[in-house]
């Protein structure tokens, strides 16, 4: 207890939970009460944001390096295991708290407009509130187990929201896929927890991180195993290779959900976890390299796929995977780059949320247009769009801001954060050469990012309109309830870089210093700072790459030559491989899913269980007994002669046994 507003941090998750309970009840019994739902749904989030701000101010005012711990009740007290339900307020969690409640509030607001007509309105807000609750538990949890509650809880909400329109099989499939794939990651998380507990005797962050340097040999098998398993969890939650496949499918959910869960908050939980466990990763250089390498590779790989997607949300989904890869590259690099990762997390939350919500606006408009003419066309296919800037100028303008930000065009928020990551990777590369490779990959990915984002904007908002004659009459800008939040996000995307304006640009790197209490313990080994000259060169390369990407796309792509989706010819060659996402889903399906189902059904169930154990074993024994009985009764044929013979045989046997 500090006697400050931070003591009331529990109010934030509790408000969200209350929102869930109330909206859930409304969803079941009064689904038509949409006004009440909106007030509750948005109200609790705004309330939580206020709590977050107050907590942040109070905590900042304390000027302490020690996390604030709030224990509420004893959860699992068993022997040496003493798990409490406890929250922790420190520099990292306050940043996350602000991002989650801030972006969350905007997206809730946007949803009021976006979901207005949906019959599942109340259910939607109930799920969304529940998500925020779990997300807050995740970022505030003071031990691994509480964090895990949030971790799986957000997965659950993601599952429910992806499959929100559950009467379509694809949607329900996508939700389930998300949950199951995440569970694979959670398997790693769970095992890591077990190993951590038996190594350090605790699951509390403070105790574990305090004891880690003593409990583990640096670079030893135990710590490497733990961190790799933790990272397995992160690859699931944050959609990294090899578990990223669920995220593109997750776009089946309502678009604000994609913005909130699958871009801004939940998917960054993995980054948060690695940052949180920086101490552990610092002890395991191999794991750090794996994290950074996986991040870099994912960044590149997802970007290649994004090049050839036609679905506007899928482009953004792969873009998200790619950007998350950057964040992992950052947190895997360690030390100061941790802060860069969190920085990118924040800026990405702004511009990606903006992009998703913007695309939501577009889809909203397209959908309305097609709906008005009862046309069965795909409202999300960019080939059906084109020239939309004339109909929705605000959206177009705001999305351009976000595009420039993500492309890394100077002075937009993404420029600073991405540049910092690449610079950190390069710096680490001066000590560990493999980071130079990661840096190079990151650079190529940046180029591709600029390219495919420009492509997206070009096809959507520029060139001729391909929507169709009659539909065109119905295209219009979204209501203010939706453009309002976009505006806020646009501002943040533009100026978000101020959060952590590096010294190079005359800033004081505020976020960097703020997070120092958390990141300083995660320093791997001393990396000599880059000279200003090198830094300028790197900035130059990054800017060149971004500009090259944007301009290249602008020059190379001809939106005028596109035909609407239904008339478009199939892709050929490598384009087709990209279009089909390198066939990874198919490969997973053929190598893992189908064999397991086949094994379970044909071998384990039908052969082993039904034929072998139950058939040959159990019923076989019964049948055998009956067969022997039937055989015996054939001797019992009513003939006295046979009975006498049996008798005499018996006599002989008894005599033999007695005398012999």
């Amino acid at each position, binding site marked *: 207890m500090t006697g400050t507003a931070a003591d009331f941090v529990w109010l934030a998750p509790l408000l969200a939970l209350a929102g869930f309970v109330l909206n859930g009840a409304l969803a079941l019994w009064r689904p038509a009460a949409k006004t009440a739902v909106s007030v509750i749904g948005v109200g609790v989030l705004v309330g939580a944001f206020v709590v977050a701000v107050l907590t942040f101010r109070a905590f900042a005012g304390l000027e302490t390096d020690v996390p604030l711990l709030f224990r509420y009740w004893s959860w699992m007290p068993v022997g040496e295991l003493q798990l409490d339900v406890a929250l922790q307020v420190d520099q990292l969690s306050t940043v996350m708290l602000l991002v989650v409640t801030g972006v969350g509030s905007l997206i809730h607001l946007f949803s009021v407009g976006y979901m207005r007509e949906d019959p599942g309105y109340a259910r939607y807000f109930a799920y969304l509130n529940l998500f925020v609750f779990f997300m807050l538990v995740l970022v505030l949890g003071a031990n691994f187990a509480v964090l895990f509650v949030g971790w799986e809880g957000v997965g659950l909400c993601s599952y429910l929201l992806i499959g929100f329109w*559950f009467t379509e099989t694809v949607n329900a499939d996508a939700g389930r896929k998300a949950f199951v794939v995440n569970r694979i990651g959670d398997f790693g998380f769970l095992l890591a927890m077990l190993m951590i507990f038996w190594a350090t005797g605790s699951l509390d962050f403070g105790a574990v991180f305090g004891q880690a340097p003593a409990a583990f040999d640096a670079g030893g098998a135990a710590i490497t195993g733990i961190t790799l398993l933790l990272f397995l969890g992160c690859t699931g939650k944050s959609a990294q290779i090899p578990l990223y496949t669920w995220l593109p499918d997750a776009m089946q959910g309502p678009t604000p959900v994609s913005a909130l869960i699958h871009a801004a908050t939940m998917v960054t939980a993995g980054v948060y976890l690695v940052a949180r466990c920086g101490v552990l990763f610092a002890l395991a250089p191999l794991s750090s390299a794996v994290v950074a390498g996986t991040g870099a590779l994912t960044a590149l790989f997802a970007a290649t796929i994004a090049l050839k997607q036609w679905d506007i949300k899928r482009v953004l989904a792969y873009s998200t995977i790619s950007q998350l890869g950057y964040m992992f590259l950052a947190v895997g690099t360690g030390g100061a780059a941790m802060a860069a990762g969190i920085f990118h997390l924040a800026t990405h939350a702004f511009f990606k949320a903006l992009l998703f919500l913007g695309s939501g606006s577009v889809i909203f408009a397209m959908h309305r247009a097609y709906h008005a003419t009862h046309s069965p066309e795909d409202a999300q296919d960019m080939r059906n769009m084109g020239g939309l800037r004339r109909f929705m100028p605000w959206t177009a303008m705001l999305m351009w801001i976000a595009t420039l930000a993500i492309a890394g065009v100077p002075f937009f928020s993404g420029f600073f954060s991405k540049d910092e990551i690449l610079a950190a990777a390069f710096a680490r590369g001066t000590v560990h050469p493999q980071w130079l490779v990661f840096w190079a990959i990151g650079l190529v990915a940046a180029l591709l990012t600029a390219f495919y984002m420009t492509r997206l904007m070009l096809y959507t908002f520029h060139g001729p309109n391909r929507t169709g004659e009659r539909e065109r009459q119905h295209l219009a800008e979204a209501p203010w309830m939706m453009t309002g939040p976009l505006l806020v996000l646009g501002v943040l995307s533009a100026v978000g870089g101020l959060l952590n304006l590096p010294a190079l640009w005359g800033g004081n790197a505020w976020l960097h210093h703020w997070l120092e209490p958390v990141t300083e313990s995660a320093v791997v080994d001393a990396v000599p700072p880059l000279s200003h000259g090198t830094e300028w060169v790197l900035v130059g390369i990054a800017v060149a790459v971004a500009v090259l990407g944007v301009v290249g796309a602008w020059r190379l792509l001809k939106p005028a030559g596109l035909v609407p989706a239904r008339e478009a010819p199939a892709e050929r060659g490598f384009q087709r491989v990209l279009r089909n996402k390198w066939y990874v889903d198919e490969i997973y399906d053929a190598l893992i899913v189908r064999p397991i189902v086949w094994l379970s059904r044909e071998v384990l169930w039908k052969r082993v269980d039904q034929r072998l154990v139950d058939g040959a074993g159990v019923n076989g024994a019964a049948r055998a007994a009956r067969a022997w009985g039937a055989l015996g009764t054939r001797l019992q044929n009513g003939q006295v002669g046979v009975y006498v013979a049996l008798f005499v045989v018996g006599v002989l046997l008894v005599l033999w046994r007695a005398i012999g």
Partner: protein
Amino acid sequence: MYERWALTALLVWPLVAGLGVMVLPAPRARAAALVASLVEFAISAPLWWTFVPDGGMQFLADYAWIPAWGIRYTVGVDGISLFMVLLTTFLMPLSVLGSWNIPRRQPAFFGLLLILTTGMIGVFVSLDLFLFYVMWEVMLIPMYFIIGVWGGDNRLYAAIKFFIYTMFGSLLMLVAILALYTAAGRATGTYSFAYTHLLSQATQPGPTAWWLFGAFFLAFAIKVPLFPFHTWLPDAHVEAPTAGSVILAGILLKMGTYGFLRFALPLFPGVALHETVQFAIVALSLVGIIYGGLVAMVQPDFKKLIAYSSVSHLGFVMLGIWALTLQSVQGALLVMINHGISTGALFFLVGMIYERRHSRMIDAYGGIARVVPLFAAILTVVSLSSIGLPGTNGFVGEFLVLLGAFRHYPVATAIATTGVIIAAAYLLWALQRIIFNPLTDPENERLTDLTPRELLVLVPLLACIVWIGVYPKPFLRRMEPAARALIEQVRPAPLP
């Protein structure tokens, strides 16, 4: 007063009430049964508060029964059996309420349910091996009738399979009990079936101890059920009426694991902790977890799916028991309780939808969340509890088991942990095919949502799901001394 008579009252009351209910006219029988089961619960409720967590047996009652053989009526509970008793008395009123509209011969059905209660509680409180054995077998009969008379199409096969399977194991246990009795009698000169007496003579590994352990193992393994002794379970679960399935899964299966905790481990610590036995049992638990989950995944029948998922869950319990750490044993106990609650609730839900639609096939449904949102919501919550989502009871139990087991069997625990993936795969897939996906069958359009009575059955279970998930301490606190005592008894010196 309460101390001495509580358990006896718990045993006598349902028997008497059950016989009484049987002769009542049909419309009044169910109400009487509900009252009787609530009274039973009321009798048992003070156990929760008056129980002192000290590791010893409490509420002891001890009277001579057949002195010629040293058979006594000895009952008592400790931190292990307390929860089994409470789980039983908790589930019984719900089962009665859940079978409110059971067709045909209602008085007999509710009477048998109550008599079954006596048998089940008897198993958990008996501290005399003769009494234990009698209770263990006696409870078969009502269950046999419940499956055989009120079950599904294939009920006769399921009933006789259930009966013979269980009997096969338990009769060999009977021989083992007798051999144990004889051996202890020879060694001490006192011939007695008292648990404490036989426990004090717990034998060191020798050829006999191996055989005796084998007999006990078989009896309990069938009940648990461990692979490959599990095939009675899918049939019995599927064919039994709702209350039968709930009790089978909720309580009867726990008798197997309870038997391991109470008898097989403490009586034969040398054999039970022998390397080969440890390996075999841990391996079988793993097979149960993985195999049960995989087979559950491909079941077209929802009840069968739940049945196989029980195999999987009980695998966790066995792993927890054999790991013999404080966390794993308490986790195993919690999983036992949780499984009773979650799987019980699942069976109730299947039963409720079955009453409306007369199909247990997953394919028969789809998209019904739109028609019956309340049902869908509760089914979702219960399924999540069953797959161990943190914040629900399922997580606490499984987490403790895995945490505890990891200490002694890291590799096995790692394999067991994959069970959480499989659980999500099979249950969510089934969930999707039932409540999500397009609503294709017009019959499903006409489904009606849960009635207040059905809600009354489910709400207590949901409350427990959340309670144990969020604040399991009251449970853990009460079971810890008993778990500690058990571990010290079996494994006096900690492993190196």
